[in-house]
């Protein structure tokens, strides 16, 4: 006489067969891939556009500094007056005109040089031009000081501090950030899942209330069974959706990459690259060697442990939140009434993410990180951000992990119990817009 599987099956099928669900599931990966392709295409398009800049050089300096680059090419005018050069530039449709007057020395030439263009020039181009002058000026000054260019390059070495643990293992700069981003990814996934599928659970409860089927069902099954079946069924639908996204997304990406010949490294380096790059510090001479170390370090992240704890935190966290969502759905009559109750649920989730990104990243085992990874409404997200650092020595102390899970478990039982009570009373209340006080009263029924 166990009716739970029946309920789960119905909830799952009701969700999966829903038209908007099907459309969302299959359209999202296509949209995502289309977006990646669009970005790739636009980047390429941008690269291929070449600007032509005219140069009128009356000075004795600057001969071959204005050399054609990937994005800009230079046309040199000779024997024209400034006015003629301007007219010509305009007529030819060039981007602009660099004018170098005839002066006694480089300093003066640079000072009086002009760039003429139709509109205010593109910053990138301006910077490029300015660098040409700057380099030339520096070269000149160095020569005055009697230093050769080679000597200067030698002087301008980058420096990196050697870092190591006390045990002598080499530490990598930025590895904490990378680990935190991985953990953050897990945490973010939990949050998104809770918000999206918690909302589904809530809407499904409201639907049962407004369609008045609830009392028919409640006379055959216990409200708690119905609530649990709904939560499980909806999350299975969610997991199905995620699985489809991952599989189709990967397939589509691979197909798209091969068809359009986009190198994934260029796409990712234009997107995520800079952010990561700052952490990793660019231009290290032994780049290959370092990358290997990073790869090794990433490989050494205890993935199995991470996924096991992800599942624990994910399931407990999701059940806590979705039972609150179910209780809200039961308490109200329509979706517009849910606003006042939803905000307090989203708040701890947002807080967890922000605390995670601002505090846990920089100090994964500091007091704030510890506090929020113990507090049950934020721990699923915050703890996931700390865990990639490992457990025990140098990572999350075991007592914290155990305490966090125990508190979460206790909260889970308590919240589900409370939510079930509100749910049980709420689903049979029609036409009332409840206040918090009323919800509190229901707990005593």
């Amino acid at each position: 006489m166990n009716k739970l599987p029946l309920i789960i099956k119905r909830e799952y099928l009701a969700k999966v067969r829903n038209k908007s669900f099907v459309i969302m599931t299959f359209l999202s990966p296509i949209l995502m891939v289309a977006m990646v392709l669009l970005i790739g295409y636009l980047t390429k398009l941008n690269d291929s556009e070449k600007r032509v800049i005219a140069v009128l050089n009356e000075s004795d300096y600057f001969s071959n500094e204005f050399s054609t680059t990937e994005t800009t090419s230079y046309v040199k005018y000779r024997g024209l007056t400034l006015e003629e050069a301007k007219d010509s530039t305009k007529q030819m449709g060039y981007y602009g005109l660099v004018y170098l007057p005839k002066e006694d020395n480089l300093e003066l030439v640079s000072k009086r040089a002009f760039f003429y263009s139709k509109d205010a020039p593109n910053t990138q181009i301006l910077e490029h031009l300015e660098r040409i002058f700057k380099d030339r000026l520096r070269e000149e000054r160095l020569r005055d000081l009697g230093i050769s260019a080679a000597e200067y390059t030698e002087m301008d070495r980058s420096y990196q501090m050697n870092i190591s643990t006390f045990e002598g293992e080499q530490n990598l700069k930025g590895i904490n950030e990378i680990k935190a981003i991985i953990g953050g990814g897990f945490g973010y996934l939990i949050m998104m899942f809770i918000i999206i599928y918690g909302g589904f659970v809530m809407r499904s409860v409201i639907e049962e209330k407004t369609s008045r089927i609830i009392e028919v069902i409640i006379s055959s099954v216990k409200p708690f069974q119905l609530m649990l079946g709904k939560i499980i069924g909806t999350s299975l639908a969610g997991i199905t959706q995620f699985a489809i996204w991952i599989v189709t997304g990967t397939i589509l990406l691979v197909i798209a990459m091969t068809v359009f010949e986009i190198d994934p490294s260029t796409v990712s380096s234009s997107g995520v690259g800079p952010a990561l790059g700052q952490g990793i510090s660019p231009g290290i001479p032994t780049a290959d060697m370092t990358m290997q170390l990073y790869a090794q370090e990433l490989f050494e992240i205890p993935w199995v442990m991470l996924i096991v704890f992800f599942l624990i935190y994910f399931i407990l966290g999701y059940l806590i939140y979705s039972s609150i969502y179910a209780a809200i759905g039961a308490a109200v009559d329509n979706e517009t009434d849910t606003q006042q109750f939803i905000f307090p649920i989203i708040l701890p989730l947002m807080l967890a993410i922000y605390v995670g990104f601002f505090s846990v990243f920089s100090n994964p085992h500091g007091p704030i990180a510890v506090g929020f990874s113990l507090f049950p409404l934020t721990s699923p997200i915050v703890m996931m951000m700390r865990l990639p650092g490992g457990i025990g020595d140098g990572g999350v102390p075991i007592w914290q992990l155990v305490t966090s899970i125990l508190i979460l478990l206790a909260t889970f039982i308590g919240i589900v119990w409370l939510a079930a009570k509100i749910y049980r009373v709420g689903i049979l209340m029609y036409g009332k817009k409840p206040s918090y006080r009323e919800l509190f009263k229901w707990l005593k029924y």
Partner: protein
Amino acid sequence: MNNILVVDDVTKQYGDHKALTGVSLEIPKNSIYGLLGPNGAGKTTLIRIINQITYPDQGTVFFDGKPLKPEHIAQIGYLPEERGLYKSMKVGEQALYLAQLKGLSKREAKERLKYWFDRLDIGDWWGKKIQELSKGMAQKIQFIVTVLHEPKLLIFDEPFSGFDPINANIIKDEILKLKENGASIIFSTHRMESVEELCEYIALIHRSEKILDGKLSEIKKAFKNNIFDVGVTLENPDLLLENLKEKYEILSSNYNNLEKQLDFSIQLPNDNSGELLSLLGSKANVNNFVETIPSANDIFIRTIQNKGFENE
């Protein structure tokens, strides 16, 4: 054991609000029982307790002689007042789901559904979605789902609201057939006239208390007040009325000159009506002579007044 259901001193309170106060009922097997009372009297709460949707604070409910247990759900069919179906689910699938929740196997449920769909002539609805059906059509499905698992006890809360007269009659006939086949039936309604003719037993619930219960015919006998409605044909009504007033109390009278018909309402001191009838027979042509039986509604109002609930 002659009672399918015994409610023993059940009390239920929601916060400060008393929903039921010491209510006791006995519902005989194979009977139709009317649970009557105005909205908010506590009928639905009592029914929810019988269906184990909520639980009493005090008191016990016995089903077929045993304290009510979750297993008994399979033997109760309940059509709630607030009823509906999943809008986007197909009729057949939905009926199957609800039947399975009542404990039927899928195969059994399918067979029985087929039987009922044919019987109510709605076989072609199987693949339709509920949102394509009218309200009356959906109610038929709900009715089928309620009775499909052949429960011993059927509870209908405001059964005929939402049905058009034709469908209401079809459903009424089906309910009577179910009774013939041995089911016990509870009707709960605030529209007492709608079920009066069907019920053998009634209980009146008012402000969380049961104020009256028993066999309807006996209650009516107890409440009848020996008032008769009489219609006679004669030339001189005033003479007869004068004559009658010596012995009886005339409550109202009306004479139709054209038809020579006198209609009047008369109060007898006891239920011996033969004397009056023979008196009338000797003086006029008697067209009708009917004892006014109080309706459930009248009984209800009088009981409330007797019990001192006038402060409404």
